[in-house]
């Protein structure tokens, strides 16, 4: 017998799950990504590098900047271009905006209704209006950072190889410094809320992240010895899903906020680090549902770091100078931490600046096997003990903890 869950709600994109029951027991679970395939790597082949980051941004609305930045980094590494600290700080500021926008959307508008038992944040707002408003304020601030750095709230084209179309002004940076300070108390309150919840889902055995906090030269896992994705990650197609699955040394693994904290907690800003230490014991149990708590701690990190970056840039002054980029034959990989975890953009470019090979692996494709493992465990616990409605609701919550980004996941290819 197969129990088919209807399409998930309050997640990005279209996906559902099937639970296979044999002899009255849960035997298997299949996560089915039914979002249509989007063939992004085919889109970039043969294109001039200059236009590629703008197109790759269209992979996803929630994390478009992570795609633009990973794309730009892959291209710059292929050409051997290095950008100065100012450009790096501004890129980081954009990624921080994305972390805020994405985590706030997830925690306040998609997960909080589960905590308070409402179908959505709109209905929840009647009783918990303050919480919804605080979430929207954080999200709006994150989006303003994305607009400032990326050129638009969604799918901006301002991030270019070698720099930016437009640089922020002093007034804009001053406002960021001020506002990030004001919003900090909202984020701290949310950490308390998510720390108070009982864990659910599976406990992840392997965690993966980039070696720097929001991007890196390589990836790290337990042991922290840096490696390239090609050395330890394998992808394969599934017969029931438009998303592929990745495995780390043959095993399911977790990427995202929880993985970042556990692997890179020492890189956090002061208050975020204090909160991480306070809740470390819980987080180290590895329950995937603590990804929510980890995201809340990252809201604190993002706000503190946005203030720090704005201050550094204001103290030094902005030169607004791009680095010149000359195409040459080469190969490069951009590793970025999208809000949901490691994102890889890998290109080979020919001497005329056209893309000859392209490979993208998104966080949700990396988490795919772990989501299934988690669903399987939860289904085994619930089947026969609660009614089907309750089971479906709880399974959806398990999927939601991964904050899956289904649109991102449906175009994985090596060419």
């Amino acid at each position, binding site marked *: 017998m197969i129990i088919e869950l*209807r399409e998930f*709600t*309050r*997640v*990005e*994109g*279209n996906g559902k799950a099937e639970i296979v029951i044999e002899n009255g027991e849960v035997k298997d679970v299949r996560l089915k990504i*039914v*979002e*249509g*395939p*989007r*063939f992004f*790597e*085919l*889109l970039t082949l043969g294109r*001039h590098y200059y*236009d590629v980051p703008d*197109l790759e941004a*269209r*992979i*996803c*609305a*929630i994390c478009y900047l992570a795609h633009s930045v990973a794309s730009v980094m892959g291209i710059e590494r292929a050409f051997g271009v290095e950008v100065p600290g100012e450009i790096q700080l501004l890129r980081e500021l954009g990624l921080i905006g994305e972390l805020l926008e994405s985590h706030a*959307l997830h925690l306040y*508008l*998609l997960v909080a*209704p589960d905590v308070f038992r409402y*179908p*959505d*944040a*709109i*209905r929840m*707002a009647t009783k918990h209006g303050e919480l919804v408003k605080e979430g*929207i304020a954080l999200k*709006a601030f994150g*989006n303003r950072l994305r607009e400032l750095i990326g*050129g*638009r*709230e*969604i*799918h*901006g*084209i*301002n991030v*270019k190889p070698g720099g930016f*179309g437009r640089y922020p002004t002093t007034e804009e940076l001053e406002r960021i410094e001020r506002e990030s300070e004001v919003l900090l108390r909202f984020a701290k309150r949310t950490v308390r809320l998510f720390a108070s919840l009982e864990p659910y889902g599976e406990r992840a055995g392997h965690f993966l992240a980039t070696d720097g906090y929001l991007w890196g030269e390589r990836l790290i896992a337990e042991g922290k010895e840096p490696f390239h994705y090609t050395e330890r990650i394998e992808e394969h*197609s599934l*017969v*029931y*899903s*438009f998303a*592929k699955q990745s495995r780390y040394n043959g095993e399911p693994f977790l990427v995202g906020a929880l993985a970042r904290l556990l692997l890179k907690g020492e890189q956090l800003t002061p208050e975020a680090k204090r909160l991480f230490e306070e809740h470390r014991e819980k987080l180290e149990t590895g329950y995937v549902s603590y990804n929510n708590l980890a995201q809340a701690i990252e809201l604190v990190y993002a706000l503190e770091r946005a203030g720090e970056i704005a201050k550094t840039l204001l103290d030094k002054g902005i030169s607004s100078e791009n680095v010149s980029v000359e195409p040459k034959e080469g190969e490069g990989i951009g590793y970025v931490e999208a809000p949901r975890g490691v994102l890889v953009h890998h290109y080979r470019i020919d001497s005329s600046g056209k893309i000859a090979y392209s490979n993208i692996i998104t966080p949700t494709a990396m988490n795919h096997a772990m989501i299934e493992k988690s669903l399987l465990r939860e289904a085994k616990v619930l089947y026969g003990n609660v009614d089907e409605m309750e089971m479906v609701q709880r399974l*959806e919550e398990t999927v939601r903890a991964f904050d899956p980004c*289904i*649109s991102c996941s449906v*175009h*994985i*290819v090596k*060419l």
Partner: protein
Amino acid sequence: MMGKLKLGVFELTDCGGCALNVLFLYEKFFDLLEFYEIGEFHMASNLHEKDHYDVALVTGTVSTHRDLKVLREARNRSNYLIALGTCATHGNVQGSIEMPIREKLKAVYGDEGNPMRAIDSKPVVEHVAVDLAIPGCPYNKEELYQALMDMAKGIDPVRPDYPVCVECKLNEYECVLVKKGLPCLGPITLGGCNAICIKSGLGCIGCRGPLPGEVNPASEYEILKSKGYDDEYIVRKFKTFARWEP
């Protein structure tokens, strides 16, 4: 006051941005809720009312049989259907890969074949009649807000009918095509975005599709050629968002 209008949001294959952009209206979203009741919006709510809708917003391209089914239901159950965003109105970037679907699937998923049924990405407007098309990748959320408010008041929404250049000039931005030689599709692209990309000092990428009626892609083509861009580059640029035939 009359009862609220019933609104449904339906997502086909896309990046999620057009549905998300509705939430990005922030406090204005709550203003809309004075006039609209949301019956279905899977990104934001787990309600599934399967009801009749006064207004349906449909985002994304039709890329699977599931999409087609969702679209037909949305059309059958609604009075006024808005194709929202360039995926829905023109097919957008994912519709621009000129390869038969079977080859595309093989390239991506390998030789074992993927038994899931996918179809060539096409915009919503090629499958059903729509009452209003709001392009943009993403669309300008103010334009959607205005359209929904107009409808709530019984007014037919106004459609922009001028190129991006008009808004560029009104903002007094420097012409990036003439002054910097950047590839800018502003002269032939439908305005309504407030020339947002030119604000960053970069060229319009044409995400809102061609200006209906009088538009002169041939002349744009010549300008880009005179700036040193080769034929292949220009043709690709034209085709990326809206399948322009130069």
